[in-house]
């Protein structure tokens, strides 16, 4: 019984972190602050992964998202900003917020009733999967996806270099 309460408290804590970070990422007037909110939100979701007993996914979340993707976003802010706030100081405005809320209502208005009506009855506790099983899955039934994602990453890297490449003396 005690463990159940502990799990609920941990879930509430991580959810609070993830959602507060998400709200900051969406509403901050400065892009650097928005990126920091994204980092906080990613850490909260990593905690939720830990609660789901997916510790390998949680570690990869911290390594890939917090370690690599946010650095990329920070580079994007640094390399392009014209002013200290990155061009977000005036906010979305009334029309922008209205458009945003309307767009959010469409998928959420579909998904939430479906969840409420057709939500499956899951297990009370998550399954425990060894990381060795994940490796065996990558080398066994899911080899094609593993190879394809490497090709996608290579193509993205080559494309990024090609796009950002500047010929010497072009301008």
């Amino acid at each position, binding site marked *: 019984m005690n463990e159940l309460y502990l799990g609920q408290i941990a879930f509430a804590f991580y*959810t609070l972190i*993830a*959602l507060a970070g*998400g*709200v900051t*990422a*969406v509403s901050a007037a400065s*892009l650097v602050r928005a*990126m920091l909110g*994204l980092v906080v*939100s*990613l850490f909260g*979701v990593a905690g*939720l*992964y830990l609660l*789901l007993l*997916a510790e*390998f*996914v949680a570690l*990869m*979340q911290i390594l*890939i*998202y917090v370690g690599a*993707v946010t650095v*990329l*976003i920070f580079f*994007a*802010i640094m390399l*392009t900003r014209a002013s200290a706030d*990155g*061009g*977000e100081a005036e906010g979305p405005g009334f029309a*922008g*917020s209205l458009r*945003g809320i309307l*767009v*959010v209502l469409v*998928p*959420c208005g579909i998904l939430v009733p479906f*969840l409420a009506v057709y*939500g*499956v009855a*899951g297990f*009370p506790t998550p*399954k425990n*999967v060894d990381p060795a*099983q*994940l490796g065996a*899955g*990558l080398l066994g039934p*899911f080899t094609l996806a593993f190879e394809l*994602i490497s090709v*996608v990453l290579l*193509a*993205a890297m080559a*494309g*990024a*270099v090609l*796009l*950002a490449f500047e010929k010497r003396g072009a301008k």
Partner: protein
Amino acid sequence: MNPILYYQAVAVVLLGLGLYALVARRTLVGMLIGVELMLNGAGLSIVAAAQLTPMDAVLGQLGALLVMGLAAAEATLVLAIVLVVSKRFGDASADAPAELKG
């Protein structure tokens, strides 16, 4: 109660926040942050479904890892595109490339 519904609810909220940022932000980098939030919610939803239902747990966790890889590839490409846009139009707002020349 039903734990999987809580996780799915958090994922839906993350999707909503990301969509709002995608529509309401003025700059391309702000939109990219929204897309990352949405992909994060998708990964959480996949892992929750894999760990709390009779579905193959290995498939779900590997799916979440693939989502992360795709997010990294997408962020790389968007960084390059943002660089090109800011070089060509002077700033990285989403409105700048939408104007017609004439």
